[in-house]
Each structure stands twice: as C-alpha cells, then as structure tokens.
C-alpha cells in the first residue's frame, strides 16, 4: 500500500481545516460579507506560499518522490464554464458554508447534514456528467 501516505495527508489536512475554523459556516459567511480578515489570511497565505513552491517545482529544485519533475495539470479553459460553474459553486458554498473537501471533514462534526450535502454534491456531479456535452464552454 504505497498510497497509504495519502490517507495520513488527508487526516492532516482535515485537522488543519478544522483547527483553523476553515470548515465553519460562520467563517465563510463573514468572508463573503467582507467582515473579517481570517479566511482571506488563510487562503491568501496558502496561495502565496504555494506560489513559491510552484516556482521551486518549475525550476526543478523540488522533484517528486520518484525524482520526476512536478508539473501541475493545466486547468480546462473556457470563460463561460469557469465563471458560470464557479458561480454555481459559490452559491452552494455561500448558503451551506461547505466547499468540496470540508464536506468530507464535516461528516465527523455533523453527520446527517454533511451526508445530505454529500448526496447533493454527487447528484450535482451526476447532472453535470449527463449534461456535459450540451453545456456551453
């Protein structure tokens, strides 16, 4: 089981999100209402430090565990899909206070509501999959 390290990384990431309150509904509410710096500090800090790592990946100073170059996958392009898809995501995130990873973490805190959110998210994914060829990109 060489991938078991991802299990431990998941545990670590969940603890980080939980302890910094980055799974709390209140934290996202105040973020979207621009009433607190907390989430901007967390996400902004994560992005800035990750950008430094990305430069180290690019220059080859950090390689992966097998000695290969690390190249982040390019994101799918398309103005409508990213803006419109992002807006849908933001609507769900703003109302429920839960984005993708936290839904799994919240299962430990509030089992029933997180299960409903997860079933909804899978249903939403299914709807996207069925419609994917018909939606504008």
């Amino acid at each position, binding site marked *: 089981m060489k991938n078991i390290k991802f299990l431990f990384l998941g545990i*670590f990431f969940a603890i980080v999100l939980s302890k910094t*309150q980055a799974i709390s509904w209140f934290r996202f509410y105040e973020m979207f209402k621009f009433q607190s710096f907390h989430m901007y500090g967390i996400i902004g800090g994560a992005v800035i430090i990750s950008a430094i790592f990305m430069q180290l990946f690019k220059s080859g100073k950090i390689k992966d*565990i097998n000695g290969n170059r690390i190249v982040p996958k390019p994101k799918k392009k398309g103005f409508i899909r990213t803006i419109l*898809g992002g807006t849908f995501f933001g609507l769900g995130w703003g109302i429920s206070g839960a984005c993708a990873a936290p839904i*799994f973490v919240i*299962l430990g805190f509030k089992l029933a509501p997180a299960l*409903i959110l997860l079933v909804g998210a899978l249903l939403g994914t299914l709807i996207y*999959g069925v419609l994917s060829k018909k939606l504008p990109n």
Partner: protein
Amino acid sequence: MDIILQPWAWYVGGPLIAISLLLYFYFGQNFGASTNFETLCTMAGADRFSDYFKKDWKDRDFALLFVVGLIIGGFISAYFLTPNQTIDLNPKTVTELSDLGFSNIGNQYFPDEIFGDDVVFSLKGFLILLISGVFVGFGTRYAGGCTSGHAITGLSSLQLPSLLAVIGFFIGGIIATWFIIPLLF
C-alpha cells in the same frame, strides 16, 4: 497539548495548507478535492447514465484514501481536538445574523438554523442542504475545480481559468450571503 486544543490563527493555517499541497505534489499527484465527487459517482454506477463517468476509478485509489483520511481527520478533530468551537466574530456579523433570527451565533462551528437535528429533518432544512450540495457538485465539475484545485493550486500556479473560477466563486458566494440567506431566514 494546550496549543493544539486552542483555535489556530490564520497565519498558521495558510502555511499548513501550502505544506499539504506540497506533500500532495511531492507524492506525485495533482492537489484537489472535487474530482472525488466524479470518482464516487463512477463507483456508484453513474456510467450507466453517461459516458462521462466511464473511467477507471482504481487509478484514483490515492485520492480515495485522501478522502477517507479527510473523514477520519474530521472525526478526530470533532471528538478530540476542538473542545472550544467559539468563533471570534465581528460584532457586525453577530448583529446581522441575530436580526435574521440566528441564535448561538459563533458559539459553535455550525449554526443550528442550518445544521441542527430538527432543522435537517424538516423539508425546508433538508432542501436547503441538498440543493446547496447540488450547486457545489455541479458547479465544481463545470468550473473544473473547487477551493483546493482552483483557488489554491490554480491561482498559485498562475492559471487564468482559476482566476475566472474564483471570481465566479465570489459572485455566487456574495449572491448567496447578501441576498439568498436573508430570503431563506
């Protein structure tokens, strides 16, 4: 132990999230969370409905282990690491939410008005969560990523689609909190 049990400051969170991303890439994979919704759909047999789900989910065993880790980490955090769920909110936020009829504001991570047992099993409460979930799942797959994949991985690697997606996240989040929440409560 006391340091672990106290809430962690924002300047601790940013670096630790970046370290998680670093390790994820160092282990040879692309950091993100929401592709797992697709994988779980495939495992549940969604390939009967659309070729979109005809993928070999066994290639994603690493990501599924990460998800299992997230769930275990959530339980560990909830039961052992967060005895104090008080959130230091802006007094303005508290007044606003109190005007909307919220109680116990900032005394716990999740408001009873959305996550409480009696609310979750009422039709309105159930639908609020289910439809939010549908928006999250549909939106992240359409946009091609979530907060981890777009806001953190995509922005830090200077990808334009991620900037557009994050703008979308905020359009949606602002509509939700400024206009929809006051309508719902």
